[in-house]
């Protein structure tokens, strides 16, 4: 009869060695994200994964937020294999098969940013902590995007921003966990400059009105640099309060300033009101310095065009995307028609650029997870960095690793003279190729930022 020598201490030692041995492959291959499914915030454990859509559901951008939410719902439907699949079939990456993300059914929660940084952070925090959201997306303001991006970085969550156009989002406030599909103020200016030169010549005097907050400042700086490079002279730039509703007292000095171009660095309600006031004061009908007086709105949106009504006619601006792109500019913009068909059939009208960017961001996140074979944020960051893709409506696109900014063609548009229907508000004047709007990551307008390390959280 043999006597067992198993002691409590021996058992613990044996157990530790065995556990170490079992863990060995994972430890040595920790960069193979596919084999880790824990060790990060909100690692999905069941058969569903929850995404958090943080959009303005109240406040001045609620309509834009509603359109973003429609796009998110559509993206979730398509990821789960429902509906017609939208851009899944045109997307160059083929990992999305309508079976969710990594085989998990996609669920979502939504929050209201109210277009206020503190409210947006609170709703994002709630979605992360209470609802277990593993990714946050959406928004219609750069202030909100920067605030929520910072929160996601701290929490170890991926942030796929919605409509944010300030250079700062992927400039001085860039974060490793944050990614921007939307274009930015620099790109708007770079895309507009050659078109402005072609339309209005190289000898112009500019008066600009700028919304007094982060986006307005970067937009003004960008367009001033681009137009001065053309030979245009900036006479003055006037900062206007974000809360201003009547811009008449800012318009009257324009009349006698000697300027022959007015640039409105305004967005949303600000832009609708300032453009309306400018037209009321007869600026469009003026002749100055022997030239027709012109108005330029660097950042356009369909909802703004709708709000401004006939005043938008002939006004030049830029967009991230337009629903007519594939019909007018060909197959390079494949995906546009698939998305418009899908969205239009479900909701009865064409999608806005905010909707397109949110839809694309959701698909890009899901695809990155599938390619990385992990929900770990650091794996997703690795999969998205320097990812080149096509078929999401914007033509060939690069998610640059250095600053997490997408580089793609920029659409230059003009308010249409005789719209054929209520959705046909702008005409595409030009599509500026991505190469012409690409800049160095350390360009002075973007300098001072640091992505830092990706944060997986828990």
């Amino acid at each position: 009869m043999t006597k067992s020598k198993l002691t409590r201490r021996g058992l613990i030692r044996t157990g530790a060695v065995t556990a170490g041995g079992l863990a060995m492959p994972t430890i040595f291959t920790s960069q193979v994200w596919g084999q880790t499914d824990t060790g990060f915030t909100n690692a999905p454990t069941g058969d569903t994964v929850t995404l958090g859509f943080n959009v303005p559901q109240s406040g001045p951008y609620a309509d834009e937020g509603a359109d973003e939410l429609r796009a998110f719902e559509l993206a979730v439907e398509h990821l789960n294999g429902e509906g017609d699949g939208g851009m899944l079939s045109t997307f160059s990456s083929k990992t999305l098969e309508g079976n969710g993300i990594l085989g998990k059914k996609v669920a979502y929660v939504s929050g209201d940013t109210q277009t206020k940084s503190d409210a947006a952070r609170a709703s994002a925090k709630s979605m992360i902590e209470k609802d277990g959201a593993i990714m946050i997306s959406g928004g219609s303001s750069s202030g909100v995007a920067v605030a929520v991006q910072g929160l996601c970085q701290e929490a170890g969550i991926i942030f796929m921003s919605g409509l944010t156009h300030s250079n700062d989002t992927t400039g001085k406030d860039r974060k490793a966990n944050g990614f921007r599909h939307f274009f930015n103020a620099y790109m708007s200016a770079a895309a507009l400059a050659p078109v402005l030169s072609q339309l209005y010549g190289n000898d112009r005097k500019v008066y600009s009105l700028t919304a007094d907050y982060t986006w307005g400042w970067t937009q003004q700086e960008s367009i001033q640099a681009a137009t001065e490079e053309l030979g245009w002279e900036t006479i003055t730039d006037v900062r206007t309060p974000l809360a201003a509703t009547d811009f008449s007292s800012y318009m009257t000095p324009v009349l006698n300033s000697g300027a022959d171009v007015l640039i409105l660095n305004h967005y949303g309600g600000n832009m609708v009101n300032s453009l309306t006031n400018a037209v009321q004061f007869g600026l469009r009908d003026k002749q100055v310095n022997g030239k027709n007086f012109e108005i330029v709105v660097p950042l356009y949106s369909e909802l703004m065009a709708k709000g401004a009504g006939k005043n938008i006619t002939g006004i030049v601006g830029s967009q991230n995307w337009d629903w007519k792109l594939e019909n007018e500019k060909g197959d390079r913009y494949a995906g546009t028609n698939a998305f418009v068909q899908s969205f239009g059939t479900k909701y009865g009208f064409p999608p806005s650029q905010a909707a397109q960017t949110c839809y694309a961001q959701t698909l890009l996140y899901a695809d990155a997870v599938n390619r990385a074979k992990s929900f770990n944020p650091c794996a997703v960051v690795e999969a998205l960095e320097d990812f080149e893709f096509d078929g999401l409506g914007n033509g060939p696109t690069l998610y640059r690793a250095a600053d997490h900014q997408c580089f793609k063609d920029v659409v230059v548009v003009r308010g249409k003279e005789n719209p054929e229907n209520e959705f046909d508000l702008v005409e595409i004047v030009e599509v500026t190729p991505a190469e012409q709007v690409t800049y160095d990551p350390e360009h002075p307008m973007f300098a001072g930022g640091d992505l830092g390390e990706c944060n997986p959280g828990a």
Partner: protein
Amino acid sequence: MDAILLQILNGLDKGSAYALIALGLTLIFGTLGVVNFAHGALFMLGAFCAVTISKLFNLSHKASEPSGVDFLGNPKYEDVLYVEDWFGERLGGWMLDWSVPLSILFAIPIMIGIGYVMERGLIKHFYKRPHADQILVTFGLAIVLQEVIKYFYGANPIPTPAPEMFRGSFDFGAALGFDANTIIYPYWRMVYFVFSLVIIGGVFAFLRFTTFGMVVRAGMADRETVGLLGIDIDRRFTIMFGIAAAVAGLAGVMYTPINSPNYHMGMDFLVLSFVVVVVGGMGSLPGAVLAGFLLGVLESFASMNQIKSLLPGIDQIIIYLVAIAILLTRPRGLMGRKGVMEE
């Protein structure tokens, strides 16, 4: 000189809106003693009366034959307007073009009705309550009203243009002997200024020259004594609430071509209008009108580049600075009466 004239003109139309809203506010305060924070919402509701009329005039049915394809490639049927079906193309087109001025006819009874219901249904229950309670309940009501409007009309501004003949601008410079194109002023803003003078004059005349107005003024001076004479002063004050609502509503209707209305426009004006009332003197009708125009003009001057380069941001705070200065030197406001809000 031309810049100064322009800013005075600008200030007058801005002041017109302040004066009209503040007039209604101080009328309600002077009669019912209620601090009505929902007054800005009444301005907004007036604007949405114009939006609603414009939408009603634009109601249409589909043509029987397709005339092309829609954005999805399906057959497209043109919209045919009912007003053109019923009244012919010429009269129907005129109604569409003049929808904002025509809205006045609808807005008056609607706004009086809204004011009546608001006073009888909610505000009368707060007469004996502290001013803080009144502010809370009326501010809450304002938020409810704007959310209701947002639910039905969305958050985006809705363009509501002036009639074609008022869409241009007038060259004051040429008329006054300055260079052409130096002092340009939109026709509709001139219409708005004249309209506000007519409304303000109408309210003053109503209070001054009618028996009803005389009783109301007596009630404002000494409500109890008028009541003891057997006059139902409460009923008259309720009607005055309706009239004040109509004044705010009309200010909103005519404002729609100046800035596309949205659900939040009442709040944008509310705080400024309260400052106007306080500067003018609580309960003082002439004070509200005077302060409205004064602060409108001052706000315009503060937006001039020359002023802003000396004092950055002054355009955002000028009204409050003036309010502080006036309240320090004249605690009852410019034309305030003794005893009002001093108990």
